[in-house]
């Protein structure tokens, strides 16, 4: 005979998530009742407002940490605070990109090229459901980083993924490719979440618990042998490694990055990475830490392959979005070394790297969305030749962000790489250190090759023109540039803050 335990929810600490969810619901209501004309602007306003309120609500919780926020489902601690902060800031920068009206399909239901679609475009209709979907995804991400039991993790994973599957298919131009991206993302995402669920099942079987703390206790004190545990860790890792696009679970990333609307790609590439790595950090640092000797070789192998593969394949890309996708794969490899390190400096470095990389990624994709000709965005690299001549500012900004990805000093990328490789070394992992440095040298090759292409090649005949950035896109680009520069030149305060704040409540 068990008694019912009345659940206690700490609404103050859940506030950021709840605010975002509420914003999304209001967005849905706007879709239902507001007239077509005013939807776009009111949705944008609502989304920005929601994110700011969520950010304020998050800041209000500063310093209060608890693992009993909603029974055992979520844990708010320093690391969670920083990760949620990163996600909200990145989302705030990225959501402005959704505002440019000609990025999303006018009538997703109409066949591409049909009369219906033309009429809808002429009537200046656009899918404003993008905004509530984005907010749902953000809520999922926020929850993903603080989940401390497996089922909340699973639900959060789905809450963040489903909207992204949908949004990937809503591009205005090249709609077949966009829908294909959505299909691929969805099928492979569902495939990997089936693995994830299977892993959860085995972890539950192994530990008789679904909370991270319970699993950790079972690892240290359990009498079972490790088979169920290892199956569980492996399959849960498959799901998480899929989200962070680590080799060999990466193959969706290039196709989806290329096919999805660029604004969505920007948001997805940056924020999802923070959320997924945040969750990975928590589960590996809190739940699986006791079994480090068994999973470290596995993750190390994945990290090494990911770094080398991402860097090598990026070289032969001819499409800028695919190139950035492979670069993000390589960066996933670098970030994995922070998880493998399993020490405090690894945690600090990974959080810093995630934030720096996320911000720079948003900026880079924002710039990609500007380079276009009469028929829409141009992501073919050959046609970027000589961009420096025609739009020096845009080209310089892009070059700066590429240098960040390459990890050239005085950019945030350098500080992040340095911190993360140092942490890896501290944990005694020389293989990671050497491979990391080597593959970032390879990676620098293609980043700088693009810079050379942009600045030192003559423009091709059917070259591209750069759209005059709208106010929103301009804010996004400038914000991302400023943060990247500040984090590169003057990272000490942020690093300090992260070092002081980041910890996991076990």
């Amino acid at each position, binding site marked *: 005979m068990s008694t019912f335990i009345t659940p206690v929810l700490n609404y103050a600490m859940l506030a950021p998530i709840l605010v975002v969810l509420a914003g999304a619901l209001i967005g849905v209501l706007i879709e239902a009742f507001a007239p077509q004309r005013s939807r776009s602007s009111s949705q944008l306003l609502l989304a920005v407002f929601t994110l700011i309120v969520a950010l304020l609500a998050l800041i209000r919780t500063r310093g209060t940490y608890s693992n009993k926020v909603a029974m055992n489902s979520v844990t708010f601690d320093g690391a969670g605070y920083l990760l949620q902060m990163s996600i909200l800031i990145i989302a705030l920068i990225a959501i402005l990109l959704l505002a440019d009206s000609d990025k999303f399909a006018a009538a997703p239901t109409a066949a591409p090229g049909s009369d219906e679609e033309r009429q809808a475009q002429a009537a200046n209709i656009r899918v404003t459901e993008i905004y509530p979907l984005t907010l749902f995804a953000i809520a999922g991400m926020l929850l993903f980083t603080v989940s401390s039991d497996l089922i909340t993790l699973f639900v959060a994973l789905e809450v963040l993924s489903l909207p992204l599957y949908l949004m990937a298919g809503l591009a205005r131009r090249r709609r077949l490719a966009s829908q294909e991206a959505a299909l691929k993302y969805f099928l492979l995402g569902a495939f990997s979440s089936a693995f994830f669920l299977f892993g959860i099942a085995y972890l539950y079987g192994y530990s008789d618990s679904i909370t991270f703390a319970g699993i950790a206790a079972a690892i240290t004190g359990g009498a079972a042998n490790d088979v169920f545990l290892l199956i569980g860790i492996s399959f849960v890792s498959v799901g998480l490694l899929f989200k962070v696009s680590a080799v060999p679970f990466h193959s969706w990333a290039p196709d989806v990055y290329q096919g999805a609307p660029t604004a969505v790609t920007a948001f997805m590439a940056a924020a999802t990475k923070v959320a997924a790595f945040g969750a990975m950090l928590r589960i590996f640092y809190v739940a699986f830490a006791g079994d480090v000797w068994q999973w470290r070789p596995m993750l190390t192998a994945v990290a090494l392959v990911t770094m080398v593969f991402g860097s*090598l394949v990026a070289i032969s890309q001819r499409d800028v979005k695919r190139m950035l996708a492979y670069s993000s794969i390589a960066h996933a490899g670098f970030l994995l070394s922070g998880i493998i390190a399993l020490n405090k400096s690894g945690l600090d470095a990974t959080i810093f790297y995630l934030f720096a990389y996320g911000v720079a990624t948003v900026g880079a994709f924002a710039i990609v969305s500007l380079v276009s000709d009469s028929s829409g965005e141009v992501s073919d690299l050959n046609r970027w030749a000589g961009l420096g001549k025609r739009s020096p500012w845009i080209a310089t900004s892009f070059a700066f962000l590429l240098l960040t990805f390459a990890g050239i000093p005085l950019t945030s990328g350098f500080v992040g790489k340095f911190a993360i490789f140092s942490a890896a070394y501290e944990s005694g992992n020389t293989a990671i*250190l050497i491979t990391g440095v080597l593959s970032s040298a390879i990676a620098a*090759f293609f980043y700088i090759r693009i810079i050379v292409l942009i600045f030192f090649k003559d423009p091709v005949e059917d070259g591209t023109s750069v759209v005059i950035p709208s106010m929103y896109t301009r804010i996004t680009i400038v914000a991302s540039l400023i943060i990247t520069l500040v984090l590169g030149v003057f990272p000490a305060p942020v690093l300090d803050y992260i070092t002081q704040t980041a910890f996991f409540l076990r």
Partner: protein
Amino acid sequence: MVTSSSLVYLIGLPLFGAVFLLLMGRKADKWGHLFATAMSAGSFVLGLLHFFAMTNRSEEERPITQTLFTWIEAGDFKVDAALLLDQLSICFVLLISGVGTLIHIYSISYMSHDENRRRFFAYLNLFVASMLLLVLGNSYLNLYVGWEGVGLASYLLIGFWNQKPAYATASKKAFVMNRVGDMGLTIAIMIAFATMGTVSFDGVKEAVDRVGTPTLTAMGIMLLVAAAGKSAQFPLQAWLGDAMAGPTPVSALIHAATMVTAGVYLIVRSNFVFDAAPTAQLLVVIVGAITLIFGAIIGMAKDDIKKALAASTMSQIGYMIVAAGLGPAGYAFAIMHLLTHGFFKAGMFLGAGSVMHGMNDEVNMRKYGGLRKMMPITFATFGLGYLAIIGVPPFAGFYSKDEIIATAFNSGGAQGIILGSVTLLGAVITAFYMTRVMVLTFSGKPRWDDGVHPHESPALMWLPMALLAIGSVTAGYLFTQGEALVHWLSPLFAKKGEYDELMPHSVVTVLAITAVIIGVTAALMKYQFKSVDSVVPTDVSLATRLARNDLGQDVVNEALFMRPGQALTEGIVAIDERVVDGAVRGIGAMTVGSGATLRRTQSGYVRSYAALILLGALVLLAGIWVVTQ
């Protein structure tokens, strides 16, 4: 007097100039070049003030440090963004800002017809700032920032005239080689951090005793790789010649006086590492010696005046590297040669620019000839630089090269004899190819194309050349007067070990002068007293004229000496151009190729992606199977 808190302005002035001019845009077109020059000059004046302040302090108090802020702090590891000005860096500061300012002045006139002159000056300022940061950083990490900065600025400058079609491949080659170098530096820094827990020069110096020789050898080799990449040393030398596609002042600034010497700076700065790692030190000497001969031989075969000078630069830096590899005995001489070379080679590049200016941008020396009368000032300044580089007393190069040859001979044992001979042979060849350049350009009959009207360059251009020429004449004497430079730098280096003097200094001097005489005579025999031959078959008029003047003696000469010599020369040039190029392209292609192969996994079919995921999971399961065995 100036204090350490003003160190930042050394870098800050030119950096501000660069940022300001880039931000101002076209509005600054009218006065941007003057502003940039003023910024660079300001930096030079400040450097001078620091220099005088430093001379007034006692030996122990000379190095000063300015900490700007804590740059990276992760756990116990802390890197400050800090600047260090000591006896070594002040030499570089003066060279960079001084020669840099002269080149700014020169460029005002040289680039006056270019509509993007302001941008060019912004880049020049950026370069000066980065280079100053490179030599002022107090840790390897800060040095690395400057290191990458000069790389970036040099790209922007070399590519400034990007209409040249050859540039694309040239930049690629330069890029690959420089990345190999940068990787070396990165790994060296990582090694330092990993084994010593610090990356500052002071910290590493103290930690040298704590770590084992293998570690230091590895670090030394990585530093050598870095130096070879930046300073165009064997086997990473091939990019330098191609980089000549940029505007001439750029070549003078980057490829003669400053950036290419960064490798020498790095090795001299890391003297404590190399002193403790004899193997790495030996490798330094070998690399230097090979490059010395290699560059000199290439110099004999080039008809492009800038490429001939570039090959010469390669060879002269080889001298410096050899000196730096000789340990405490040679560090000061490496720096001395670096400084004198900065003067005369920059002057000669500017002279070459002046010649090109007067010759409608013609670079082929076979189309020059007899310019002495048309360009008397250029001739005079170039000539002084020439006398300095081949080592005619009492010009600058004589002193510095003489010292290096003597140190090489005296480094003891078979090594000493081999190195001495190599440096001596280098001196012969240097005299030969520089005389060739001189004669082909300024002497003999005019071989100009139609429509070329050579004329002297304006004062704004020849003035810097004249100033550099004065440096070429006097610098060597000043540095060696009472061993001034050696004493100045000596607190930084370990005590010179005792060694057997193989031969007295006077004998070395005689040998060196003999070498010069041999080289000059040979070149004069071949080029001055006979009409210039041509290997340019397309140039019909020149070929006809040569055929008319050819004497039967040449045939014998050719068969006995020239052919084998030519074959050797061509062979080495071929190695430079094909093998090394091929290797670079091969590595590039291999990387790109493996990328392309791996890319094929991305077939576009969801099902094959799913199969990949399934296989990944299978591998994980197999891993579990093994682990739980």
